């Protein structure tokens, strides 16, 4: 019965989304608060119903109910429990349900916590969110229902793609979807601003926390995906400019630009049109990603079963939604108030430049992603646009952006003194130069790109810290005073510093890893060794291992550090999955400081003397840890910013030393200080 309860709850969620849209839109037209309340309650209920539905699907996977077609296609009774649960969103249908869960979840949050918004803005936003819900829920119910049943259930399921049977499956998709779909709220708020003709500071302040939440989740999701691709052999390393990676990267770039432009709109009331444009663009790119993955136009581990009909339907949703949004923009945006003025050299201008560069970077990624598809559709020939294209287009844009980044936060609003700002960065410049020279002198083989990249990383990190030092007047006021000021810095400022410094940490890791990684592959018999970057790997043993739903050959390699001490025992595996018979390679990673020794076991072969030998590959990935630590810091910065009481829209203003009022406090604020 539980499965059918889930099927009913899914349909109920769709109906409630219709009620949400109609009631909220009517509320706006008739200025009726009771109708608005009905719309909000419907939004919250739609989420509750979908949560029931999602739980029912997870239940079906947990008990291996093969009368559910989706479970049959993606599960197996012998699969470990973790992947039975993860399998619920490992397929097209299940992940659409997760998408809808996030969509209605954000709708419920908007409805439940939107008290600071004006009634008109809020009801239009809730109505828009409901309309998005209708589109995606209808698609799920009618075109890819995860609760479709089989009258004659097979004995066993076909199991989940073994490549997806990985702990990362539990976290990567949910974070990514929260990020993707979090941008839907921003989209709805943009539509509301266009309908109301109002994109003022209050609106921008409302856009920021949603963008920040979505951006942080997206950052974590993309980083987890990059880490997964890094340790999963054959996925091209942590970033490959794969179309699906790009599909998640474009909304991230737009969300990053939006975070910055919303600051200008909030602080100065300027750039309202551009901020709305970005807010519409963010979710449009999210939907584009969903379409690319599900339409069958791409071949990738991310691509679900090829199904042109579903692709066309998704493309229709994308076209209609984005089309209506941007048409409304074209109609209403020109009438928007212009907002505050600013000089060419000012914080505002710096943020505009940031936005121009990020938008241009997004455009290059979009072109690189879609060009092969368009070319194939028109000319019928398959071409691939790979890393060389992105290195030539995206990297220079980012280099300029990152070079200018530390100066931005040091500029004053309205009118700034560029010379003074640059002067304050002399320490960062000096350290960056030292880093470049030291790299050229010390690291073999010599690389100008590597030295420039490391200098850029140091410049970003020290430059971001300089801004904090400036704000607390470090070395210009007594230490205790500086410390007091440090404690008084708003969390938003800490968030910004962490995010910018995290970007620097990422640059250090990415540049070091790509420039100085080493690789050795050799065919080894037991007892033989190979050497990579000074480390010696000795193949000590290869033994069969019986997993829950696979059999594996596990090698044990003794890794000796350059100084002869034991670095670690590496145990890479080759797994053969019983269901489906696929083979996967589980790499072994030894962390040495910030670097990774990465060991891969290849197929068993027969040596000339008849004994068994294995192809063993050892990689030395220097500073690889920073590639994932940097974005981690950025996401942490986002979370800290999000906790800033200035962004907590419903919380009362802090009354002297008392803790912030609980989020539910409805009262108007600012009366008491």
């Amino acid at each position, binding site marked *: 019965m539980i499965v059918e309860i889930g099927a009913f709850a899914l349909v109920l969620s769709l109906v409630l989304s219709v009620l949400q849209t109609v009631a909220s839109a009517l509320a706006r037209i008739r*200025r009726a608060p009771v109708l608005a309340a009905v719309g909000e309650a419907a939004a919250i*209920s739609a989420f509750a119903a979908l949560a029931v539905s999602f739980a029912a699907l997870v239940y079906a996977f947990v008990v291996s109910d093969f009368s559910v077609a989706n479970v049959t296609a993606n599960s197996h*009774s012998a699969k470990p429990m973790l992947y039975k649960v993860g399998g619920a969103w490992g397929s097209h249908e299940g992940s659409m349900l997760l998408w809808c869960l996030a969509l209605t979840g954000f709708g419920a949050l908007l409805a439940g916590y939107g008290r600071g918004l004006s*009634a008109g803005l809020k009801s239009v936003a809730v109505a828009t969110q409901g309309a998005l819900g209708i589109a995606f829920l209808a698609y799920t119910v009618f075109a890819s229902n995860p609760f479709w*049943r089989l009258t004659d*259930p097979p004995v066993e399921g076909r199991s989940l793609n073994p490549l997806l049977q990985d702990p990362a499956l539990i976290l990567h998709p949910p974070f990514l979807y929260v990020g993707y779909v979090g941008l839907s709220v921003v989209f709805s708020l943009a539509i509301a601003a266009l309908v109301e003709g109002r994109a003022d500071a209050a609106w921008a302040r409302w856009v920021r926390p949603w963008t920040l939440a979505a951006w942080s989740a997206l950052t974590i999701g993309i980083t987890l995906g990059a880490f997964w691709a890094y340790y999963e052999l054959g996925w091209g390393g942590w970033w490959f400019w794969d179309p699906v990676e790009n599909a998640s990267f474009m909304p991230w770039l737009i969300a990053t630009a939006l975070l910055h432009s919303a600051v200008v709109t909030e602080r100065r009331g300027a750039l309202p049109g551009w901020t709305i444009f970005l807010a519409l663009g963010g979710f449009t790119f999210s939907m584009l990603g969903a379409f690319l993955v599900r339409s069958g136009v791409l071949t990738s581990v991310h691509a679900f079963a090829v199904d042109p009909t579903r692709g066309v339907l998704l493309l229709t949703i994308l076209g209609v939604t984005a089309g209506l949004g941007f048409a409304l923009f074209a109609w209403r945006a020109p009438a928007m108030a212009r907002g505050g003025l600013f000089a060419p050299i000012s914080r505002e201008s710096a943020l505009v430049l940031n936005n121009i560069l990020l938008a241009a970077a997004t455009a290059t990624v979009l072109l690189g992603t879609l060009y092969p598809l368009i070319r194939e559709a028109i000319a019928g020939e398959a071409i691939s646009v790979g890393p060389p294209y992105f290195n030539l287009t995206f990297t220079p844009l980012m280099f300029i952006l990152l070079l200018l980044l530390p100066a931005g936060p040091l500029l004053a609003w309205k009118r700034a003194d560029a010379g003074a700002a640059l002067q304050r960065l002399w320490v960062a410049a000096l350290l960056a130069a030292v880093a470049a020279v030291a790299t050229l002198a010390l690291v073999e083989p010599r690389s100008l790109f590597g030295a420039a990249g490391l200098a850029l990383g140091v410049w970003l990190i020290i430059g971001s810290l300089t801004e904090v030092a400036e704000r607390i007047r470090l070395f210009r006021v007594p230490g205790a005073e500086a410390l007091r000021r440090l404690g008084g810095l708003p969390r938003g400022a800490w968030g910004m510093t962490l995010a910018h410094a995290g970007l620097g940490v990422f640059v250090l890791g990415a540049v070091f890893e790509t420039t100085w990684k080493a690789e050795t592959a050799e065919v080894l018999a037991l007892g033989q060794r190979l050497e990579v970057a000074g480390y010696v790997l000795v193949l000590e043993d290869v033994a069969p291992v019986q997993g829950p739903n696979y059999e594996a050959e596990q090698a044990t390699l003794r890794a000796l550090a350059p100084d002869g001490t034991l670095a670690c025992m590496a145990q890479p595996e080759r797994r053969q999955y019983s269901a489906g018979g696929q083979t996967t390679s589980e790499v072994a990673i030894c962390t040495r400081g910030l670097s990774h020794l990465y060991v891969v076991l290849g197929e068993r072969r027969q040596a000339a003397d008849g004994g068994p030998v294995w192809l063993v590959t050892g990689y030395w990935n220097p500073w690889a840890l920073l590639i994932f630590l940097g974005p981690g810091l950025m996401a942490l910065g986002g979370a800290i910013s999000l906790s800033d009481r200035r962004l907590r829209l419903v919380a009362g203003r802090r009354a002297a030393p008392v803790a912030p009022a609980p989020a539910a406090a409805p009262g108007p604020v*600012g009366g008491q200080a």
Partner: protein
Amino acid sequence: MIVFWIAVGVISAAIAGLILHRAARAAASGETGDSTLPLYQRQLAEIEDLADRGLIAADERRSAHAEAARRLLSAADASGPAWTATMGGRRTLVALAAAAPVAALGLYLATGSPGYGDQPYAQRLDQWRAAPPTQLDAPRMAAVLRSVTQERPSDPEPLRFLAIAEMASGDAAAAARALRQALRLAPDRADLWESLGEALMVAAEGEVTPQAAAAFQRALEQDPQAATARFHLARGRIEAGEVAQGLAEWRSLLADLPMADPRRPVLQAAIADVSAGPRPTPSAAATVGAAEILAMVEGLAARLAVEPDDPEGWVRLVRSYGVLGDAARRDAALSQARARYADNPQILSQLTQAAAAEPMP
């Protein structure tokens, strides 16, 4: 079914209750004003706060303050009339709150599978275990035996039966896995090594691979008379070109087999077939035992029952039944496949050809 209706009722009531509760609260609190003004007031207060803590300079404070104050004023001007319109009576609202679950139920009855209970794997397994084994097809038999092997992890016998069931359901690789597991428990049983060799051979489409040959060798180490192992090892030799030696081994095997052994005619036919002349690839019928063929055909039939959209599979199945001389099942499969591909003349003609296949002597 009753659980389903209770759940539907509870969910519907909770949702209708929430909608009515919210609506009643909004009606009671009266008008909803523009709540953006407090936000500007807070922004003003924050500027003061930052300035007090010395985080922004005095002139910046002045200009920021002036600008925020201007925005506060313009927002106060811009906010439209307050929202006061009341909705029609309570009845309209109650109808609205009730309409959603009713509409959902209607849509569910159209799209869902009402009355179809859950089918958890454990529950189905219990049913199969309770059923008489003769009523189970091979895949279900394998599922039951798999659960038995888990209950008796140190007994090789259920594993051997599991291997037979896996072979019959067409999964030779799974059969080999079960046999390997059984051999870990009983490494000195020649019959298990022979079965493993056969499973590996079937998995390799009849070829005596080095792994299969190694398994047969192990069987001979345990029992030098192991007939199946000797038969296939010799067949491997013949296929590898050592025809004379292979035939000699077959003949000595024939001499060792008791007169009543049902395998004698198969072996005699194979010897006659190979002796008749150089045939680089002996026909499958002569090489793979009849049991293996049956197992493969059963596996194909089971697979087509699960995944019927495989025209080549149907053609193969019809031909196999024909070759085996099982006219009844051949005609059954033929009519099933004809119905499925009624609009595809190419497949239909292939099916007709396959049905005309001569039975094996």
